[in-house]
Structures are given as structure tokens and as C-alpha cells.
């Protein structure tokens, strides 16, 4: 660690916090349908979309209607992405004449992008045509982010409204989020990325002769437009196989800084948006502080581990395996923690080659449920499960009916929150357990021992948490992994999303009581401490046994200087 490392971490965190209030306030206005400075510019596009779509944005839905709209919209998106891939050889914009994608891989990718996971079993530059990248994947990058935010908005309305069954119009939420938030930000960001050297063209691979006379075929394509939204929408799916480690995806330290900021910018701002929507900014800042603290703690572990491992393993030589010269160790560690607390999953270094505890931290961040800022929308509704649980526990301790924002928290809310909290964890552990007991799971491993186990645990963790990053030594493009991970991603998405909507419906129907002297305050340090404890304890109790078999064991072997494999 030198002074530059410290400055970079500080500037990153500082800018993230500074951007939160203006962006959060802007989004709150957009999502409530109020006028913003963009209304004169883009209002026509919003209205045109409603008209062409044949929907009435003012007609609100109850939670079941809202959930059906989400499900049907997603099934359609899934079908579109699947069929574009399996027929891509017959579609335009395929200058490298890539063949149709094999169906299990296409299904995996379709589920992956529809669920905002962006797990990639394939290599972009050798598998997908530009048509597939643009019209299948980039579109889902926008839409999966937008519907994640929509579900969060529905839940926020359920909490702030009283005695109604209406929680908003899904189409209005989806369109406003896309038109006013994601599209303008992505446009600006893509322009900046191009200025740094990210490619944006429709050319076939360009074959050149190197200075030493070797042939090199360099893949190109419309990358900047896709990378902008994959960072902003917590998607993370790379245009190229090496993701944001590829010099065409992330050419300079400046592009790297902005791409890192884009990972957490919207999820962080949505916390502020939430504060405005429920008219309790203090509570929102408490949630924000908890998130910032847990992220910083994870980053500290990752940075310490990288430097400690370098000293133990290679006589202090920096651990540059799987890292890029222009970013160095610190930027790789910041990114690894940011991309896994959020459900982004893009990488600028190979997580498989991180030091054991840094790789373990990336996994544990996902194990916590990606609620530390988290995915766009999904991070906030995931965090609210933990908030409800904390309120419930506090109520049990003092023997009062738990309340949150004036609403009584009862059996149904807690049941739903439990499903949302524990569902992804079950999918992660069961998935990894199945994979490591079947030959089809084990034959894809590239490493033996604890690292091999980590490859499998990471894959199912990443899939169930809708993250998408990988210990990429695992050959995941096999029918076994394509199908089981597709199921895990789909289940992981909806096991959180549907309970969130159910809670929204149930809370919206309740009366709200003003706080009394006995109400447990959700706006102070006591609540922050309790919430942090609940998050960490649930994560630790669920995952420590698995982590011990993977990264912790690997760390202990390293400390003992034992190299078994």
C-alpha cells in the first residue's frame, strides 16, 4: 500500500457519497412521474412508448397484477434472447460468420441476461454476433436493470402508502427508468468510454502482422454502448471474454475508475431515493452507512490479503497474476469488492487468481445477499428483508409488536422476508453440493483441492445471487453447468423478487400508526448496529462451513507454506 492506493480508495468512496443525493433525488422525481430537467427532452419518448405499447401509465396495479406483468415480460425477454442466439447465423451483423449457439448455452445466456446475472459460459468474441450482443444482450442489460428497480419501487410504495392495494404501474416504472435514468446515463458514459479507447464499430476481426511477423486477429465490435450499460445496470456481462480486464473494454485507469463508480452509483443513489419515497431520509442514511461500512470492511480484508499473500508467496513481489499493469493490485481489489457487493459481476482482474481471502471476500459479499448497495433495485429490496427481520428481532426482544414505518410487521411479512433472505443461500449451497458429488460437475474443474471446491461454490453463489462473476478456471460451458446454473439464476432472481412484491402488497393494505414512545427507532446507531449484526450473523451462520472448505482452507495452507496441488 502506498499513498496513491489510499488516495484512490478515498476519492472513489468520496465521489460515490457525493453523487448519491443529487442522483437519488432526481430518480425519486422521475419515478413519481414528476417533471425533471429531462422531461422536455425525453418526454415524447416516454409518451410514445406508452402509446405504441398500448398501456395506460396512470392505471395502477395490485401486487399480483404487478408480479404477473414482471413474469410475462421476463418470459418474453427470455424467449427473444434465446431465439436470437440459436438463429444468429441467419441474422444480420455477423461479419465473423459465427454459427448458431448450442441450445443449452443459449438458454443459460438467455436466463443469465434476463435475470440481471450476466453469468457467461461462452466467450463473447468467439461466440456471439453483433446482432446477438446488441439486440439480445444489451437490451436485457437495460430491461433487467429497469425491472429490478421497478420491483424496488413497488415495495417502497407498499411501505409508504396506507390502506390501498395499489403499488404502481409496472410499465410506467419500467419505461421511466429506462428512458430517463438508464438511457441518458449510458449514452454519456459510452461517449466517455469511446474517448478512452473502447471500440465501437461493426467491423470483422482485423488480422494484422505483428512487429515480429506473427499473425494476430483482433476482434472488434460495438463494445462501448454495451459496456456503459453493463456497468450502470449492475449487469456485468463482458463484450469480450476477459470482461473489463480486456484493453478494449477498459483501456485506461480513468475508464477503470469510471467503470467502478458506475457499478455502485445507481444502487447507492437508490438508497437515497428510498429515503425520499418513504419520507424518512434519516433511516435511509442509516442503511447507507451500514452498507458503506460493510463494503469498506470487505475492501480492507481484500487489500490486506493481497499484500499479505504477496509477502508470503513471492517474497513481496506484487501478486500480478490475472491483473493488468495499468490497474495494479489496489484497483483490482476495489473492483473485486464493488462488483460483488453489487450484483454487477464484471471483473477487471481474474478472481480465481486473487489471494485466497480476497477471493473468499468476493464470495462472502455475494453470500450476504448482495444487499450492500446490491443490484439496481434488487439490492434495496434485498436489504429491506434484513431490515424487516431486524425490526422483528428488536420487537421480540422488548416484547412489542414490531413496526416498520408505522406499519405492523406480522407473520406474512416475516415469512416472505425469510424466503427472500434464505432462498438464495439454499440455492448456492445445494447447487455446489450437487456439483461436487457428480462426475459431470467435477470434470469441469481446472484446479484440485480447496481451489477446485471454490470454483464450484463461486459458480452457484454467483448464479443464485445474480452476480455473474466467476472463478473462471471452471469450464462452465457444458450441458450440466449450463442447465443447473440457468435454473439457479432463475430461482435466485424470483425467490427474492416475488416475496418483495408480496410484502409490498401486504404492507400497502395496512394502516399506519404514528410512532409512540415504545416504537423502536430505525433512524439511529442502535438500529445500524443491530442491522449490521443480523446481516453478518445470517451470512456467517449460513456460509462459514462452505467457506472453510474453500478459501479459508486455502489461506491456511498458504500460511503453513504447503502447496498440495
Amino acid at each position, binding site marked *: 500500500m502506498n499513498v*496513491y492506493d489510499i488516495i484512490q480508495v478515498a476519492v472513489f468512496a468520496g465521489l460515490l457519497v457525493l453523487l448519491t443525493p443529487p442522483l437519488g433525488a432526481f430518480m425519486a422525481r422521475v419515478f413519481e412521474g414528476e417533471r425533471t430537467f429531462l422531461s422536455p427532452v425525453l418526454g415524447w419518448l416516454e409518451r410514445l*412508448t406508452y402509446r*405504441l405499447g*398500448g398501456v395506460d401509465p396512470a392505471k395502477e396495479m395490485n401486487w399480483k397484477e404487478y408480479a404477473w*406483468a414482471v413474469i*410475462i415480460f421476463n418470459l*418474453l*425477454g427470455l424467449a427473444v434472447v434465446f431465439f436470437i442466439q440459436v438463429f444468429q447465423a441467419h441474422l444480420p451483423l455477423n461479419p465473423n460468420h459465427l454459427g448458431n449457439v448450442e441450445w443449452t448455452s443459449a438458454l443459460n445466456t438467455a436466463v443469465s441476461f434476463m435475470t440481471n446475472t450476466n453469468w457467461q459460459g461462452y*466467450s463473447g*468474441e468467439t461466440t456471439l454476433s453483433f446482432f446477438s450482443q446488441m*439486440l439480445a444482450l*444489451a*437490451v436485457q442489460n*437495460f430491461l433487467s436493470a429497469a425491472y429490478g428497480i421497478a420491483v424496488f419501487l413497488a415495495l417502497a410504495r407498499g411501505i409508504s402508502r396506507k390502506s390501498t392495494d395499489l403499488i404502481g404501474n409496472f410499465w410506467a416504472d*419500467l*419505461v421511466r427508468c*429506462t428512458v430517463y435514468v438508464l438511457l441518458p446515463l449510458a449514452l454519456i458514459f459510452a*461517449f466517455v468510454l*469511446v*474517448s478512452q*479507447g473502447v*471500440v*465501437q*464499430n461493426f*467491423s470483422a476481426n482485423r488480422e*494484422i502482422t505483428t*512487429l*515480429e511477423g*506473427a499473425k*494476430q486477429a483482433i476482434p*472488434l465490435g*460495438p463494445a462501448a454502448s454495451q459496456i456503459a450499460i453493463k456497468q450502470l445496470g449492475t449487469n456485468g456481462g463482458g463484450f*469480450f*471474454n*476477459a470482461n473489463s*480486464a*480486456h*484493453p478494449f473494454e477498459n483501456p*485506461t*485507469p*480513468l475508464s477503470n*475508475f469510471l467503470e467502478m463508480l458506475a457499478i455502485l452509483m445507481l444502487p447507492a443513489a437508490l438508497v437515497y431515493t428510498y429515503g425520499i419515497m418513504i419520507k424518512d431520509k434519516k433511516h435511509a442514511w442509516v442503511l447507507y452507512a451500514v452498507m458503506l461500512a460493510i463494503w469498506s470492511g470487505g475492501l480492507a480484508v481484500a487489500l490486506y490479503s493481497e499484500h499479505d499473500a504477496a509477502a508470503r508467496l*513471492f517474497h513481496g*513481489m506484487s*501478486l*500480478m*497474476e*490475472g491483473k*493488468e499493469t495499468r*490497474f*495494479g493490485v489496489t484497483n483490482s481489489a476495489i473492483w473485486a469488492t464493488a462488483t460483488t457487493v453489487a450484483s454487477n459481476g464484471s471483473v477487471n482482474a481474474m478472481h480465481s*487468481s*486473487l*489471494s485466497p481471502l480476497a477471493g473468499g471476500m468476493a464470495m462472502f459479499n455475494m453470500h450476504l445477499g448482495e444487499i450492500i448497495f446490491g443490484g439496481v433495485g434488487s439490492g434495496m429490496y434485498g436489504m429491506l428483508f434484513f431490515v424487516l427481520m431486524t425490526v422483528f428481532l428488536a420487537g421480540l426482544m422488548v416484547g412489542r409488536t414490531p413496526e416498520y414505518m408505522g406499519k405492523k410487521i406480522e407473520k406474512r411479512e416475516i415469512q416472505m422476508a425469510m424466503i427472500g433472505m434464505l432462498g438464495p443461500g439454499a440455492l448456492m449451497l445445494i447447487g455446489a453440493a450437487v456439483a461436487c458429488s457428480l462426475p459431470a460437475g467435477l470434470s469441469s474443474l481446472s*484446479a484440485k483441492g480447496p481451489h477446485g471446491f471454490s470454483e464450484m461454490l463461486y459458480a452457484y453463489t454467483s448464479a443464485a445471487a445474480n452476480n455473474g462473476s466467476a472463478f*473462471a*478456471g471452471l469450464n462452465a460451458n457444458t450441458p450440466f453447468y449450463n442447465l443447473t446454473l440457468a435454473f439457479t439464476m432463475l430461482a435466485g432472481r424470483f425467490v427474492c423478487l416475488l416475496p418483495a412484491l408480496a410484502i409490498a402488497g401486504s404492507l400497502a393494505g395496512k394502516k399506519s400508526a404514528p410512532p409512540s414512545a415504545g416504537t423502536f427507532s430505525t433512524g439511529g446507531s442502535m438500529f445500524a448496529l443491530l442491522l449490521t449484526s443480523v446481516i453478518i450473523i445470517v451470512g456467517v451462520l449460513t456460509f462459514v462451513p462452505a467457506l472453510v472448505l474453500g478459501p479459508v482452507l486455502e489461506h491456511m495452507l*498458504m500460511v503453513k507454506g504447503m*502447496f498440495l*496441488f
Partner: protein
Amino acid sequence: MKTFWSALRITLVLTFITGIAYPLAVTGFARVFYSGKAAGSFVESGGATVGSELIGQSFRAPRYFWGRPSAIGYNPLPSGGSNLSPVSLALQKQAADNTAAFLAANPGAAGRPVPAEMVFASASGLDPHITPEAALAQVERVAAARGFDSGREKELVSLVASLTERRDLGFLGENRVNVLKLNLSLDQNK
């Protein structure tokens, strides 16, 4: 059923906006303002395209500065790293081999720590950069291979210094040297 038709129509409209109009707008902007970068930052020498400034290439001749080890042999289809665990025998062996090979090729660099980038493979396999230290450790070899006297060897040192890209905005990332650019300017100042 009505929800289905709404979903279908909204999907089509939003696909047009985000999947066609948006990437075309970005492409248009890129063509107008940054045509070279958007096309791939290709560099020419003597009328031929010799590579992309951003995509590293393999250098093994003593007369050139070498880039980082690459898990894909600098073949970009597809890009990627070794994914080896740092706590693996495979990486231990690889690091030892790369260190020995670097010291054998650059006897002048003995006695100083071997630069990490010359030992470890990059994430993309296409890293176009090395640190200035890694370039300086190769100066003696390159000068000898090119038959430079000690005066011209000093020029090489200043060439490395002049091609060193500093941290962006003074604090972001790491100082670095683009290996292809460095080798091109070597060839040009024969």
C-alpha cells in the same frame, strides 16, 4: 392476455430504443469524434498496420522490449488469464520458470528484484503495458542486441522515460509503458 400483448409491444419498442437506436447513436458519435479510437486504435508503420496500441503482442526477440507473459499467447480469440490460484504448485513453478527465464535473458537485471509483470500473466492475456521498471530492466539486453554503445544505451533509458504514461489525473492506476509503442519508436530511430 392483455398483459401479454402489452408486454410484447413494450418489449419491441424498448428493444428498438435500447438495442438499435442507442448503439447506433453511440457509433455515430464515435465515428465523428473519435474515429481512430472507436476503430481499435490501430497503429501503422511503413504503410502497414502493425497492431493495435491497446492489444499487446508477443515479443521474444532480444532486440525488442518484451511484454508480459500471456496465458493465451497473445492470441485474442478469446482473451483471458491463467486463472491459477496463487497457492498452487502450477503457479509456483510458472513464476520460478519465468523469473529464471527473465534473468537468463537479462543478466544485467540480476541483483535487483524481478518486476512482477515479467513473472505473472495478465488478466486479459493482452496487456499492452509493463511498468517503467520492467522496461528499464531490459535496456541492457536490447542495447546489446542492437549493437548500441553506452551513449545510445543511455538514450534508451530516456526513451523509456519519455514514453512512460503517468498515473491518470496524477493518482489513478499505475505508471506504465506501452510495449508496442516503445518497440515501434526503437525501430524508427535506428
